[in-house]
């Protein structure tokens, strides 16, 4: 995908979406299948053992996970509103992108704190391996979303993202929204296999 190609030199007919938008959608479909494979692996491994978590292990603290989902969900919403605002040259668009980027950073920290940055015994049992892997996957998704928002913020401040002619922010909002959906899905899977099915 290249965002430069999303710039339409000359519209012939109204409507339609840019190539950048198509690239983002197709990329999200691919990433979605990767994430779905991780969910299937987690559910499959849960189905193969009698006790989950293993004996004498407390279930995960889902508070940090829920916080991360809330933060990235809000960031995605703000990015969508900002993209629509930018298309109409509204002055609130750029500050909203900045706020969304900060929320993305917060979401990354919350998700990493409970998994990647913790000292979980990931070699002791598949339970811990799965918890760590899902957390690491979420963290990568959130870091990417935050970098995307940061990049769009930078170029908005440079004033090279032109209202009505370029849709970098729209593509970025789409990517962040997709990431939010995946992270939410992972939370649901973790809830399912840890609490409801635990």
């Amino acid at each position, binding site marked *: 995908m290249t965002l430069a190609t999303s*710039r339409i030199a*000359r519209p012939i007919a109204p409507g339609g979406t840019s*190539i950048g938008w*198509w690239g983002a959608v197709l990329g999200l479909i691919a990433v979605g299948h*990767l994430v779905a494979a991780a969910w299937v692996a987690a559910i499959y491994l849960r189905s193969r053992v009698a006790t989950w978590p293993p004996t004498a292990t407390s279930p995960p603290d889902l508070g940090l996970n829920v916080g991360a989902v809330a933060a990235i969900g809000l960031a995605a919403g703000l990015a969508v509103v900002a993209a629509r605002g930018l298309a109409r040259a509204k002055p609130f668009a750029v500050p909203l992108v900045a706020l969304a980027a900060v929320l993305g950073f917060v979401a990354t920290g919350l998700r990493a704190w409970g998994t990647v940055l913790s000292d979980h015994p990931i070699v002791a049992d598949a339970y811990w391996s799965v918890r760590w892997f899902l957390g690491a996957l979420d963290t990568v998704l959130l870091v990417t979303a935050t970098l995307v928002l940061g990049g769009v913020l930078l170029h908005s401040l440079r004033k090279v993202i032109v209202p009505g002619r370029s849709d970098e922010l729209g593509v970025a909002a789409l990517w962040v929204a997709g990431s939010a959906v995946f992270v939410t899905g992972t939370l649901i899977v973790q809830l399912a296999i840890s609490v409801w099915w635990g």
Partner: protein
Amino acid sequence: VSVAPDLETLDRTWDRRPGIAGWIGQCNHKTVGLRFIVTSLVMFVLAGVLALVMRAQLTVPDAGVVTPEVYNQLFTMHGTLMMFMFVVPMLEGLAIYFLPLQLGARDMPMPRLNAFGYWAYLGGVLLLLSSFFFGTVPDGGWYAYVPLTTTDFSPGLNLDFWLLGVTFVEVSAIVAAIEIIALVLRSRAPGMTIARMPIFAWANLVTSGMILAAFPPLVAASLLLEIERKLGTAFFDAARGGDPLLWQHLFWWFGHPEVYIQLLPALGILATVLPVATRRPLPARWLVVASFIAIGIVSFALWVHHMFTTGIPDLVLQFFSSASFMITVPTAVIVFAFIAAIWTGRGVRWDPPTLFAVGFLVVFVLGGISGVMIAVVGFNWQSHDTYFIVAHFHYVLVGGSVFPIFAGLYHWFPKLSGRHVSRRSGQVAFWLMFVGFNTTFMPQHVLGFLGMPRRVWTYEDGLGWTIWNVVSTAGSGLLGLGVLVSLVAFVQALRSGPVAGADPWGAPTLEWSVPSPPPNENFALIPIVGASEPRWSQGSRPHPAEATDWYTELGRPPEGQREAVLSTVAHAEPQAVVVIPGHSLWPFWLTVACLVVLVAVLFDVWLLAAIGLLGVIGTIAGWLWPVAEPDLRVAAGDRP
């Protein structure tokens, strides 16, 4: 207003830049497609040589051509190179080269992503092949089953080379799939509605959708196994709450659709070749397209038939056995359509492409029949891991992919090179390959019935296997000779073959409406399409509103501005003129940065991995760095 294009400016604008940087930074679809084709052909030859060494080892009992360890490496690399580094990249290369020409487009819609697809493929290939220099050639089989491939049983770096190299190649395939879908849906020439789209485009559209669904799970599986090997996690360790069968489920979730990912574009090639050979439109065109879609869906419900002997519950066995039978229906529809094309053809031309197409029909149908046999659970249990399975999948894969690929290469070679391949050489090559293939693999069915297991390094005398192995090895020599004749014929044609015109076949699709080889810009004036065989029926015609500014401007760009048309998904109505990049080193540098990360992970140099990761982020940021005003017409004051 004149619509006469400025051919000189167009040619310079779409030409590559000079020097090494120009060569590396070239993004044009023809260059990228050709690089895929040539590199994958090299992989094909290499994998074939490995196969010949294996056959030499198995010719007689207790032979000592190679050691058991080397034999394990040979069959692993043969399968890996054929499955991951030859068939899919070759089919992608043909699609990347010829689809824009068939669709009336000037280039892929995201040329830099397209270039990255090739560099990622080359990076994965080099990473995998570098294992030869480190003496750590992968040896766990092309499907790398755990626990054999965990560090307990494969402590060296062999499998790490395999996992990282294959994953990078998979990323390349995903990138190409994204590119092809965007091309087919948004870059068709005005008037080429979805109903008028060439059948090769349909095949690639369905295949690319399958790649987006099937390849990421293999990337996920490879990640899990590599993490298990590097960090000691427990995903696949039954003693620690994991399950080795998880690998098989994830692998075959990818692996079975992969068979059809290799088949469908090949069928698309044959559906392109046969109307030309038989001088008539493909019969039952819409049934064939519907069958492509049906295969694309049903192929995801088959993966467990690779796991019938792993203790799967009876009900599940019945479901996957039934699904395996079911997929024969759409496949048979396509085969019958091809037979009908030849049967009802008007003066069929028995050129090499036609011969390879008929070779497909014979070989693939035989492979399909043995496939139905092993879809029966009871038979499957008996023949599992015997040479019957080896024979079956070679009939399906060589019949279903290699023969059509050669049909496509012979068919499109004049367009690609501007030269004709010797007809006689092509016919000799076909008969050598056809006879050689059947002599190699038909006896392996018998070997399977006699109980010879696959992947054995050698065998004892007196088991009744020797004569069949001798015949099989002799056949493999013929097969190799046939491939060699083809390659020599291609090289000879490139050097001194008769010059081919724009359309030596009288073909119906748009790639034959431009000179051979195609000019840098493909189409100086974008064709307007009115039929599914545009060069046979009403053909491509001038735009009805040819005096419109956008149409005129496309033929007269500012120097260096590559302009292309975006059209609507269903009706291909022109929607916008876009400026697309034509030269970029970012895809190459991104690949280098990725390789730094992969090599650092391979050798546990974590600081270097972190530096490489920063390089990845930096190159992506540089790649996506937007320019303030991409339209030179605005900069020149021609447009507000």
